[in-house]
């Protein structure tokens, strides 16, 4: 009899906890007090954090945690396990679920949103899927959770159930389902030619299995699903459309879980299935890096023109995610570690920015930047957090964004790819250009919108989470290894992938 607290089973618990919470919320939601309903979410979030963190020492010690549960299709088992890269993503997602849940309570109540039961249930299912994506150890298991995430996000995108929501929902489904089905076809091809779908650090497909033109085709069939979710141009347009969802959804899903699941999918495919050697020799990595560079520059330029704060942040997200894709495609240990660390850094920064946007909307019903003249006077703490994370996002030293970008740039330079390094520097400047106006408008002294003369912060349920995430963004910049040793995890993952090649 296996000990029920056995380390092998803990990733399974991490997946099940939000799933059970979703079930409870959905079944009981309408019949119990809303406090009880929200308590279920909070308790599940805390439990999940405990479970995920409890695995951390084992991962840092380099233990291999893997369990095969049962055969999911002939020849492949439903297997879950923990490796440094998955652990890193799981830490981010689980850590952020708690503040987002608290923030959700403030936002949804403050905004008098309808259908909150379905909202919390779908949210928890998304977290289940995200945990599954982190801990899946083969492509079939991964794809299962990837598709669950696709479907579970749909009700959140269409939350308002109006025409705009429906339209965005259709757009979202069109992008993700098509790319998902193509991914499915690619996965079957990989299985037939190689007989295995297990993730192996450094990849396992050889040129013998997939000769020249086919390797590139299958590479893009698989990576396609990832880059659609990660919003790489020209496949990005669902992401700004999906911003019609309530802000907590934009914050956790469209800045952390869903889009990073896309980046993570790219990571798994490029470095754990294809491997750096084949990814390079079939030119897939180069083409993808080119797309990422284009995305970084173009999205920053578009972001400048957006007056709606959430849309501006959405385009900023698109650009920032391409940093991760670019980091992966440079194919060096350092840049991979930087890319992974950017998953962490960007998560904490962008979630803060989105939370601020939501807090402004609930408190003052302002969506557009041009209407926020002098809002810093009314909400100094909120806007202070916004200003800090804006600097962080632009990659100023001492902030979290600097660490990841510096690593990606170092990786690029070590490969002699000065162009990529230059892009990253340029985009940092562009980030300043599109985020600083917001800060300067809101802290303007001479021309204050009359509504903002009185001081009045957002409700504590929204304020506390966003201060918390902003603080972490700063702490991670000063000490990248503070607390959870996330930077070590990123380095471990990077080294494990490139070790076999050295």
């Amino acid at each position, binding site marked *: 009899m296996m000990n029920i607290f056995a380390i092998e089973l803990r990733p399974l618990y991490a997946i099940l906890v939000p799933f059970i919470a979703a079930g409870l919320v959905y079944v009981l939601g309408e019949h119990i007090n809303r406090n009880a309903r929200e308590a279920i979410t909070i308790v599940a979030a805390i439990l999940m954090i405990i479970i995920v963190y409890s695995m951390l020492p084992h991962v840092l010690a380099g233990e291999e945690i893997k369990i095969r549960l049962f055969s999911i299709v002939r020849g492949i088992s439903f297997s879950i396990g923990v490796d440094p890269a998955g652990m890193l993503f799981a830490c981010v997602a689980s850590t952020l679920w708690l503040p987002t849940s608290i923030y959700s309570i403030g936002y949804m109540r403050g905004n008098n949103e309808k259908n909150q039961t379905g909202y919390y249930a779908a949210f928890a299912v998304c977290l289940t899927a995200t945990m599954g994506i982190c801990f899946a150890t083969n492509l079939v298991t991964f794809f299962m959770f990837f598709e669950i995430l696709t479907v579970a996000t749909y009700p959140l995108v269409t939350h308002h159930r109006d025409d705009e929501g429906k339209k965005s929902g259709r757009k979202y489904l069109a992008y993700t389902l098509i790319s998902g089905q193509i991914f499915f*076809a690619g996965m*079957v091809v990989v299985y037939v030619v190689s007989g295995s779908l297990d993730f192996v650090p450094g990849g396992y497909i050889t040129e013998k299995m997939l000769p020249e033109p086919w390797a590139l085709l299958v590479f893009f069939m698989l990576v396609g699903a990832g880059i659609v979710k990660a919003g790489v141009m020209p496949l990005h347009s669902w992401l700004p459309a999906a911003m019609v969802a309530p802000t907590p959804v934009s914050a956790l899903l469209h800045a952390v879980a869903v889009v990073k699941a896309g980046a993570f999918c790219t990571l798994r495919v490029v470095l754990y299935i294809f491997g750096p050697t084949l990814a390079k020799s079939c030119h897939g990595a180069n083409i993808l890096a080119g797309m990422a560079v284009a995305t970084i520059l173009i999205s920053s330029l578009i972001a400048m023109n957006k007056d709606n704060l959430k849309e501006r942040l959405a385009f900023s997200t698109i650009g920032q995610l391409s940093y991760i894709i670019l980091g992966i495609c440079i194919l060096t240990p350092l840049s991979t570690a930087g890319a992974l660390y950017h998953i962490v850094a960007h998560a904490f920064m962008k979630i803060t920015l989105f939370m601020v946007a939501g807090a402004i909307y609930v408190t003052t019903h302002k969506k557009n930047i041009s209407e926020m003249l002098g809002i810093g006077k009314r909400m100094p703490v909120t806007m202070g957090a916004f200003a800090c994370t804006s600097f962080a996002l632009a990659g100023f030293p001492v902030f979290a964004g600097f660490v990841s970008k510096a690593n990606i740039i170092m990786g690029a330079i070590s490969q002699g790819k000065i162009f990529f390094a230059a892009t990253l520097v340029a985009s940092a400047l562009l980030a300043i250009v599109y985020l600083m106006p917001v800060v300067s408008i809101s802290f303007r002294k001479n021309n204050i919108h009359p509504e903002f003369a009185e001081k009045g912060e957002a409700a504590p349920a929204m304020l506390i989470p966003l201060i918390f995430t902003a603080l972490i963004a700063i702490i991670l910049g000063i000490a990248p290894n503070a607390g959870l040793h996330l930077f070590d995890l990123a380095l471990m993952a990077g080294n494990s992938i490139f070790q076999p090649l050295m």
Partner: protein
Amino acid sequence: MQHFPALVVILPLCGAALSLALTKIHIHLGRNVIFLSLAASFCMSIMQLRNVVLNGPMEYRFGGYALPYSIEFRIDAVGGVVVSMVALMGLITAFYCISGEVRTDKIKVGGAYSVVALFVAGMLGTASSADAFNMYVFLEITALAAYCLIALGGNRGMIAAFRYLLVGTIAATFYLMGVGILYAVTGTLNLQDMSVIIHQGGKDEAVLVALCLLIAGLGVKSALFPFHGWQPSAHTHEERGSAALIAGVMVKIPVFMLFRYIYFVFGMDYKYMKQVLIILGVFVGIGMMYGSIRAMGQTNMKKLLAYSSITQTSYFMLGIVIGAPVALAGSLLHFIGDAFIKGGLFYCAGAIKYKFGTININNFGMIYKKMPVTATLIVSGALSMIGIPPTVGFFSKWYIAIGAIQTGKYIFLVLLIISSLLNAVYFFKLIEKVFMENDKEMEDIRPVKKGELPWSMLIPMTICIAVIFLLGFFNVPLINIVLPLFEGVGL
């Protein structure tokens, strides 16, 4: 145990015969006897499947005459799985029919149940038979019962039934002519015997004509594109209770027969098999697209599902056309899974009709609040049709896709993907209507005291939801059971 193959079929047949008479004694006595016979039949089919898996195929010769003179039932692993599926669907559908009873008229109650039992017995018999003519007899029993059940659906049902009657009779004649030619060529009706003689060669052209007649006849019966003309109207207007059985199971049985003929009687080494499969492949390819595209424009939920059935029938045929053992196994998984998916979705349509008197999908606003179980079944069924894991639809596609690549028939992989996406279009349309449309404030024509539906409807629907997910998670045992058999016959 050795009599089980016969008992599985005979029990519902006896139930059907007795039902009307017993109804005279008490209005529910006949019905309960039928439930009992179907339940017993299901239990036996499961035990029989277990026996087949452990000890190999079961053969039952009526009257104990030697082959090829006796009528034979032969249950191999594939047949055992199909028989169990039919028995389970028959049982839960009979249960579901309770809500549709006309309680005032004893004859109507007893008669309707005996037709349902006859219907199930016919399908069980067809799936168990190993004799070409015996198959025909059971196929016609099924078809006659189906004409009745469709005609019970009211005036338009009668027209649909008449149409199906005409087409179905012609199809049956085709089948019979095919069997006649085979009998003339081989001198036997027993399928195994026939297979041996056909493999000896000679008269390949006559056999080809027979095969074409079989394909045409069984194609019409299973509504395979381009023989599907009768199907949408029949599925739309048939009697509410048994719709799941007609749409979910009946149209599959002829495909199963065709599969047996192609792989177990004619075999892959038959001279013209390649050409036949190419032509079937064209039908399948067009059918997969056609069904989905027509389904997109429908507002009647049953009609939408009927067109979707054409696509699903093509999926089973896809496995047959690809021919790799894995693809055949995937096809069978889809065959079993789709009975519960399509059956379940027809349960949903029936439930909404029962409660609100309409199945126009534009009126489905807020159904998810009014009928949560129904909405759950619609969503799980729809996701399974599209092929989202962990529902069964994903796994059947997985095996079919592997088969397509192994045999180098990449075109079918492409078609499979496109067709899944087309499915997504109209099933997400349905989901959108159920969850996001404005409330049409339809009047509840049957205010049930408590809960959304009577238990007799909820239980079959819950079973369907469970099967959709369980068959998905635990598909490997099923595949392991049937794969050895396919490995002997596939490409």
